[in-house]
């Protein structure tokens, strides 16, 4: 189940409810990249120091880990379980029960399509379909190069400009398939520009992710 170097697999049994949620979350745990493991351990240890080993703190701990790493790697969940002295399955159960937690790293660019009532009624689904078509992934998934992730969210609070899409915290209103093409095009020209400037280090989307994490590690 848990892929990647971190896993001690077969540790965890999954209930149907969790299984469904896993599926909804675009579940297959992604492989850890070079250097990621150390970053994870470092962050988790630092966070655990700030909390009493009490089950009541489990959700706040998970929230903070996700806040720093962008997701909950299997390795992190196991470490937390050990620290709080509960079975790993309990941590895993919680992480799959709540919608907030993600088990896969988010893309470098996060695309959130509002599926609140107002947006749904005027074409939220059409916007979502368009992104799925353009990115060739389903909602809840991340593209293989980890550049984009696609999610549906509930009302983001600007129903008067529905349908709404949040792209990297910038809110786009009245989104049509044409606008979706426009958004994607602007990313493409952006990355083209950067590529020309610094061809080497942009070659691998993967490399970027590690850099991002390292930068983040230094900040904290």
């Amino acid at each position, binding site marked *: 189940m848990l892929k990647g170097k971190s896993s001690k697999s077969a540790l965890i049994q999954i209930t149907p409810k969790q299984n469904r949620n896993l599926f909804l979350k675009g579940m297959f745990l992604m492989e850890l990249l070079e250097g990621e493991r150390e970053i994870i351990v470092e962050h988790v240890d630092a966070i655990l120091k700030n909390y009493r080993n009490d089950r009541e703190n489990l*959700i706040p701990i998970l929230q903070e880990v996700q806040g720093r790493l962008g997701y909950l790697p299997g390795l992190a969940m196991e470490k937390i379980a050990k620290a709080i002295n509960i079975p790993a399955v309990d941590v895993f159960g919680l992480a799959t029960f709540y919608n907030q937690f993600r088990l896969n790293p988010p893309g470098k660019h996060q695309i959130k399509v509002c599926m609140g009532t107002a947006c749904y009624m005027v074409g939220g689904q059409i916007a979502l379909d368009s992104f799925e078509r353009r990115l060739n992934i389903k909602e809840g998934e991340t593209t293989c190069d980890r550049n984009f992730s696609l999610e549906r969210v509930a009302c983001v609070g600007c129903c008067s400009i529905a349908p709404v899409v949040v792209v990297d915290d910038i809110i786009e209103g009245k989104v049509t398939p044409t606008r979706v093409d426009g958004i994607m095009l602007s990313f493409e020209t952006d990355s083209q520009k950067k590529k020309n400037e610094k061809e080497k280090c942009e070659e691998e989307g993967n490399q970027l992710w590690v850099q991002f994490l390292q930068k983040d590690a230094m900040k904290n």
Partner: protein
Amino acid sequence: MGAVSTERCYEKLKSKATEKIESLKQKPVVWIGTATCGKAAGAVKIREAFKEEITGKGLDARVIEVGCMGYCYAEPLAIISKPGFPTLCYGHLDEGLVKRLVEDFLVNDDPCFEFAMVALESNDFFPTFTDFPRGVYEQKIILEHCGFIDPEDIDHYIDREGYAALAKVLTMKPEEVLAEIKASNLRGRGGAGFPAGTKWEACKKAKGSVKYVICNADEGDPGAFMDRSILESNPHQVIEGLVICAYAVGATGGYFYIRSEYPQAIRRVKTALQQAREKGLLGNSILGSSFDFDIEVFQGSGAFVCGEGTALVNSMEGKMGIPEHRPPRLSTSGFRGKPTVLNNVKTFCYVPVIMRKGADWFKSTGTPSSPGTAVFALVGKVANAGLVEVPMGTTLRQLIYDVGEGIPGEKKFKAVQIGGPSGGCLPKSALDVPIDFDSLQEAGAMMGSGGLVVLDEDDCMVGIARYFLEFTQKESCGKCTFCRLGTKHMLEILNDITKGQENELASLNILWELAEDIKAGSLCNLGKTAPNPVLTTLRYFRDEYEAHIKEGCCPALTCKHLITYFIAPEKCSKLCNVCVGSCPTEAIYTREDGLKAIGQEKCVKCNNCLKACPPQYNAVVKLSPPELLKEKESELK
């Protein structure tokens, strides 16, 4: 002795705050709405533009961030107050307009009336809120200060009688406070309308020295945002209500349970709590009395079912948010097994006002069985979408046509969806139902969370029912078989109907039976109310279900699988190429005779061409059932 010192403590705070606000009013101030709705519409850019212009011109004016006034359709919004002028509100701002306002109003004394929306206090030049239909019907108790005060500065709230109720309560006996709340007949605004006083009393009577008060801000309904707006616009009123409740029931600890999707609300509440502590309104010996109390924030993790009391408590204890059997009720055994009061954000928000103005004053608004006001997030096909507060007993018609100013375009009203996933859809014939807990329940809907969605002729009722059921189905925690499997079965039937794969009318009876069984066989209100959207649409819009099943036709032309797009040759101009360019999948092509046509195998039904076709032609039409296409095409030949 306690009473005297409490009063004196408060007087000191109050006079300091008033002094600060008065000095603020001596100079021009720009108040910008930066709640989430404002930010979404670009308020941050507007704020920066104002700051830049003001510094650029070397003016002595301040820019202050406020919350949401409820006029979300006109965001970004700003209020400008300048001594000697009426305080005016401007909507739909952009950077050009900001330049103009600073230049003309702040520098040159011309208030640009042509751009103003409304004046805040009555004057000889410009209409105020009460001169508009919306202002006539609206009566603001809990939204009174929202959008007009700085939520990150406690002095703004104190200046407007904030924490006066707390100061008064601390000189009373807890029993008297409880009696006042009971007398007001305040009913919980979290959905079910349970009397707050009764709940508080049960907790007060429960044995134990440790008790908790929790504010439920887990607003999970996908189309509602009242609680968030209140927390972002005026967090102190909720805090004050919570502290009063704690005093009345003798609680020792307080919590805000806020969903983590509301980062700005969380931030503003935390700031507010910190400021309250600094002023001695929280912590040890509040306002010099012998009452100690403090509040913490817990972030929910995005599960709709955690809005349910027992699930919420489980989730705070670090477990999965799964509801439990009741009794024991939370009021006897809640968080950490201790007696707990759980109330909604809005419920707490009423408390300070009731304590200040009295139960009788509160009961003079609304209906006898549901006193007070109702707060709605009015969205959907309505001209003035936003946050509204009207007295209980206002009819749906007044709310939609007077407060919301009706349906935009030439469209016809079809239904109104109240209460989100637990509520129902009411048809035109129910427009005169008064809004209160009991009347709505009778009509088959529910006050619920307070989402109110207006639907017009372009909305498919089967699709709406399916949308809400899909939501509850996903959010079902899986504990009860009926809720877990029953909703799934219902959803499958609805999916089939909207895809045209169901041709037995008998499936409607199965839907009905399943709905009744789920209602009977579920433990918590998530399951008990999940079938409501389906039941009400079946009751009032059965013909639409039948059209889907019998004719494979979606009367509202929205179910993707039951429509096709077609370019009417008699309307197509031949010379214009807009639709071809608009198609994201290159399905539209030009025929030999110059007419445009759609390659159906490539069409993804994204509606782009229909929107793109210039209004003078309006050549793109939707057909349902899709078989109509063959007829049309053979006509063409």
